[in-house]
């Protein structure tokens, strides 16, 4: 009983809880902080200053070099194109598939579900050789289109299950009420179900975007020319034969974080709004 607990116990409990949360947040964010720190550390101080929390003098030099003297802006743009197109495609396809899985019973439904699940069970490394062969035959190696196709294919299974669970969360009564009110099924979908699924679609969009944004394995295998590299592959160009340019690499990493942060900042509104609050009893 909360009411029965003494004031002291409550304060201690609060300190414990916030302490634990703070410890976790520090643990999770420290690598990001370190990335930021190194990105603003001048090359000359990187190895000479020892381990400090902040360099004695900070600089934007690494950022300038990355943006002006490397191919990074190109990689960045490629990543944006691949991730946005993949996220939009997957969200549209997974929404349609998830709706069908949630609302209709059709022949082969279980087979489809099991097959989708199966694709999630083996390591991706296993399928790289066959995929490389197939994409080679189709002339889709070393192209962003090829990457988009692969990312879309590999994200659809999970996204479909995710969307299905969002549709499952919307009471069937709502659709039926809409159909009695005068909607056809597609009108009910458009005017009642989709507005309520927007948070779910936002979550799916965000999830797929992040997955595509940070994907390395396929991009590394399929892309060879500088003009088609995504930033994840591009980061590796900062590793030279004899030295790693840590400052520039970290500056590029910080820049790469920006779209993901913006994206989630934008989607947050949808992610936190109550899904169907007030639709039914309660």
């Amino acid at each position, binding site marked *: 009983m909360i009411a029965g607990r003494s004031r002291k116990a409550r304060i201690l409990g609060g300190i414990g809880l916030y302490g634990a949360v703070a410890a976790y947040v520090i643990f999770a964010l420290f690598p990001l902080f370190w990335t930021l720190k190194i990105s603003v550390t001048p090359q000359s101080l990187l190895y000479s200053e020892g381990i400090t929390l902040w360099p004695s003098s900070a600089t934007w030099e690494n950022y300038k070099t990355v943006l002006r003297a490397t191919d990074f802006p190109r990689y960045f743009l490629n990543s944006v194109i691949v991730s946005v197109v993949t996220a939009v495609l997957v969200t549209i396809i997974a929404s349609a598939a998830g709706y069908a899985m949630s609302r209709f019973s059709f022949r082969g439904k279980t087979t489809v579900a099991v097959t989708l699940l199966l694709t999630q069970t083996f390591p991706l490394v296993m399928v790289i050789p066959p995929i490389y062969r197939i994409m080679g035959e189709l002339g889709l190696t070393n192209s962003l289109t090829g990457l988009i196709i692969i990312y879309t294919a590999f994200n659809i299974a999970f996204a479909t299950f995710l969307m299905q669970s969002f549709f499952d969360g919307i*009471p069937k009564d709502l659709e*039926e009420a809409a159909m*009695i009110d005068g909607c056809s099924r597609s009108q009910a979908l458009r005017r009642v179900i989709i507005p309520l699924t927007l948070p779910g679609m936002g979550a799916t969009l965000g999830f797929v975007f992040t997955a595509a944004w940070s994907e390395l394995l396929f991009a590394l295998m399929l892309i060879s020319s500088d003009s088609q590299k995504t930033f994840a592959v591009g980061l590796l160009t900062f590793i030279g034969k004899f030295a790693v340019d840590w400052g520039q690499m970290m500056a590029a990493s910080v820049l790469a974080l920006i779209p993901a942060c913006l994206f989630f900042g934008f989607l947050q509104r949808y992610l936190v709004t109550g899904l169907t609050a007030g*639709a039914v009893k309660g």
Partner: protein
Amino acid sequence: MASVTITNVQKNYGAMNVLSAVDLSIADGEFVVLVGPSGCGKSTLLRMIAGLEEISAGEIRIGERVVNDVAPKDRDIAMVFQSYALYPHMDVASNMGFSLLLRKTAKDLVFDRVGAAAKRLGLDVFLQRLPRQLSGGQRQRVAMGRAIVRDPQVFLFDEPLSNLDAKLRVHMRTEIKALHQQLKTTSVYVTHDQVEAMTMADRIVVMHDGVIQQVGTPLELYDHPANLFVAGFIGSPGMNFLPAVVNRSEAKVEAQLSDGQTIALDGKLPIEDGERVTIGIRPENIEVGSSDALKVKIVVIEPLGLSTQFYTSLSDVQVCIYAMGRTDRKPGDTMNIGIKPGDVHVFNPATGQRINPAA
């Protein structure tokens, strides 16, 4: 407004038969309640009238039109769901006006009709609120409002009061009944609560295992239940049932209980000497303290103020007795009771059918 005619309607899910050969005609303006335990097929029947469930066989007409293959949106019906099914992203006004807007009704007219319905239901101050900002009772009213704005041929209610607390339920029950008396729209109302059925219905349809057991006015069902199921389902506290054997002689006909006590029966009943029967007696038809006497042992006494409920044991069967007034008897006491032959319902224990003449 329109009548609803259901002819030989069946519903199968694969091999499973949910409704078998249902026939029912509902007159224009009538308030009919479908009642039965869960799984009896009452909601399925309602959803078939709504068009949300396919009809496996048979025919449903609304007015003169066969609606078997008509989409729900073209049936001109309105439905109130148990969950209310309000659109969470629309405010109260939009929820209520949604159907009219879909029918391309002029904006002013929608505004007027929503306003009028809201006023009638006491919702006029909530029109700009979202469903999640309303209480359960208010949401229920919005669901009602959404239905009446339409001015449909038929109202369908699917356990609309089940999610309300007991007090509000009684209140809304009266309100729905009053609304029906004003609007006189044909209504089909599904509930598992026999009290709701008794209080609201013009006619009650009692269903069990996908079969209609009896159709009639509340008092017809109460006074002349067609079988053991209806007898047990209608009435609260429920009818008492006792197994008995018929003693028939020139002088009298009586039912002998397992402990040897006898209850006099109507001499005109078509039953043979030695026949096994189940007799049914309503709790309020048992007279306490009568001199001619069956003896029962009191187990529990429930004082209700205006009346008293006795739970007693008669030949090892629990018998509930409902008596007006108060008592100074104690549990464990033996008391005398009397039962008039005309108040005894007699059923065939094998078929469950009533043996007394129907009316």
